[in-house]
């Protein structure tokens, strides 16, 4: 971190703020001092945890404090050693050090856990077991089912997108009370998925007296049961999730529509194009970049889907509605299977990274071809 160098170091010289050698030495000493302190605390704690060494802390809190102290020292040293360039580095350091501490370390730690046999409910502790978890993963039909469900959920983003596009067009039309409708359409986005599972899933869709069940009966579904069969349950979960997140896509598309030059559409209308034609030939192509952003963002959020499933069906019936996240949640909650659950999560992460990378590549190539 110490050489987070702005590539325009000359500014300091221009501003006539030369750094004295003594000051530089002091800064370096600060860095070394802080680093040694951090190392010492970790060493003492590690020895203490192993039952040796001079001291024993109750937990690793001191290491956390030492890290914070180290981070502050690094920041101060940047300014001391490099003057204004250091002040610039100071903008990005807090976020960078924070992210490294809370993402990089847990991820590597997770990678280690993933290759261990570790059940919190058994008395044996952690035990390294090589690729056993990975082998088990490949034979876990529930996991593959959950992955298949994710394909369904992600594919349904296109339906959400179509509905959201329709709503954005409605809001962009020449209408009265636009603000009221915009706020009304936005409300579902504000609601917690847990509350929604209760409000809509458990209450409105209640088999005996929920208004939605009554409506379904009117429409000819003799015994509506929204979470009974595998297909109905999947679609119900998807409907709940769509209800919450369609406003998100809608707002992005609406912003795109409003940024679009009005003259283009006027010109098409004068040329005698029907609304249908002008939509497909002008509006839709012009909206492609915004659409791509909205859909990709939505897919990224969709891949984290868990709350509604955990609260509505807990994966049932028979794992038919499980998302990967909810399945891993169950692995942990019901079986305390930490090692295996982490392996499932890590494998999922790899799949996501591959999928998102491919998706981004595909979209950018497609965009180049179209525009």
């Amino acid at each position, binding site marked *: 971190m110490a050489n987070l160098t702005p590539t325009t170091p000359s500014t300091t010289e221009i501003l006539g703020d030369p750094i004295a050698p003594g000051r530089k030495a002091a800064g370096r000493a600060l860095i070394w001092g802080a680093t040694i302190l951090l190392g010492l605390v970790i060493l003492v704690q590690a020895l203490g945890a192993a039952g040796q060494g001079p001291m024993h802390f109750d937990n690793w809190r001191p290491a956390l404090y030492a890290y914070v102290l180290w981070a502050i020292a690094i920041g101060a040293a940047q300014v001391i050693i490099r003057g204004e360039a250091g002040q610039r580095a100071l903008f990005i350091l807090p976020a960078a050090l924070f992210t490294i501490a809370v993402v990089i370390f847990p991820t590597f730690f997770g990678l280690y856990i993933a290759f261990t046999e570790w059940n919190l409910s058994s008395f044996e502790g952690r035990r390294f077991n090589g690729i056993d978890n990975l082998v088990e993963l490949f034979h876990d039909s529930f996991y593959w089912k959950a992955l298949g469900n994710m394909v369904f959920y992600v594919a349904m983003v296109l339906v959400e997108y179509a509905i959201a596009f329709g709503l954005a067009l409605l809001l962009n039309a020449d209408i009265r009370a636009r603000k009221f409708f915009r706020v009304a359409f936005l409300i579902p986005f504000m609601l917690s998925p847990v509350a929604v599972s209760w409000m809509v899933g458990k209450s409105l869709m209640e088999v005996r007296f929920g208004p939605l069940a009554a409506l379904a009966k009117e429409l000819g579904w003799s015994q509506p049961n929204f979470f009974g069969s595998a297909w109905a349950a999947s679609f119900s979960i998807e409907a709940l999730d769509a209800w919450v997140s369609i406003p998100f896509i809608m707002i992005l598309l609406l912003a795109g529509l409003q940024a679009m030059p009005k003259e283009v559409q006027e010109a098409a209308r004068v040329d005698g194009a029907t609304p249908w034609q002008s939509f497909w030939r002008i509006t839709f192509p012009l909206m492609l970049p915004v659409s791509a952003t909205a859909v990709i963002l939505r897919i990224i959020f969709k891949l984290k889907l868990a709350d509604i499933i955990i609260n509505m069906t807990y994966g049932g019936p028979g794992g038919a509605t499980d998302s990967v996240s909810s399945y891993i949640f169950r692995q942990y909650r019901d079986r305390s299977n*930490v090692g295996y659950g982490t392996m499932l999560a890590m494998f999922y*992460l790899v799949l996501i990274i591959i999928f998102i990378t491919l998706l981004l590549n595909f979209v950018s190539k497609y965009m180049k071809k179209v525009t």
Partner: protein
Amino acid sequence: MTAVTPNTMAVDTGETAAERNKRILGRVGIYGALIFWAFVSLFPVYWTITTTLKTARDVTQGNIVPWVDFKPAWIGWRSLGLSPDTIDQVSTVRDEFLGRFLNSIIASCGASFLAVLIGSLAAYGLSRFQYKFLWMRNKDISFFFLSQLILPPVVLALPFLVLYKELALLDTRIGIILLYTLTVLPIVIWIMRDQFDTIPVELDEAAQVDGLSVWGVFFRIVLPIALPGMVAAFILSLILCWNEYFFAALLTGTNAKTLPVMVASQTGSQGISWWAMAALATSAIAPLVVIGIVLERYIIKGLTAGAGK
């Protein structure tokens, strides 16, 4: 999805009867669709609020309109200890509810504040200066921050469980704040970088010539201009943190449990008391519904920042 092009020049004098009919039909279609979706969006909220006032009989009969279909009572709020006749009595349920409510407020506000603070600083740096760390340039550093967005919570959940146990941060507010900060930080950086990019660099340069330091420029000149963007980022973070369930369910217990966990844990135990659940759900969504109505402008600003590119 068709026929929604604004027909601004409708009062054309040369309009035939057929064209006029078509136009009116279009209008009816648009408003019909608008009202239909407004109903879809708002009915569940209405249903939840009215259910707090229903007795068991009214619930099982699926009554919908208060005063017409059923006689409203404070039944749901009484069970939470928040109805007019119980508000001044001692209520353990209310104490628990208020505790969870406070936890939610502290966790979501704390995390949003922290994320906006360090996120804005990083975004400003990335927008104005050229960094180089090892092989990483600005583009790579930005990507590093944004890529955290695709990290699913399950990947971090179990390592964090172990880590927090070792750090004695399990079931503490500060622990949940740190975790939430992490989840919203990429979004904040995305929004704020877009905000800072729209502020002309000449402004910074002029202020620097006037003798302000780098940080002086940021706090005295740029920050006031970027404030609406920061509010937008803050509110968006607030929504995401307030509604977060996954980490809260795994990492909090008796002390730091947040409202969504409380809502989720109510279901299933000895039959559902609908009115109580409805009251709890109503109070869980009420703050955000109010924010949504009052600060809708900022939410839209936050959502659309950066997405246009």
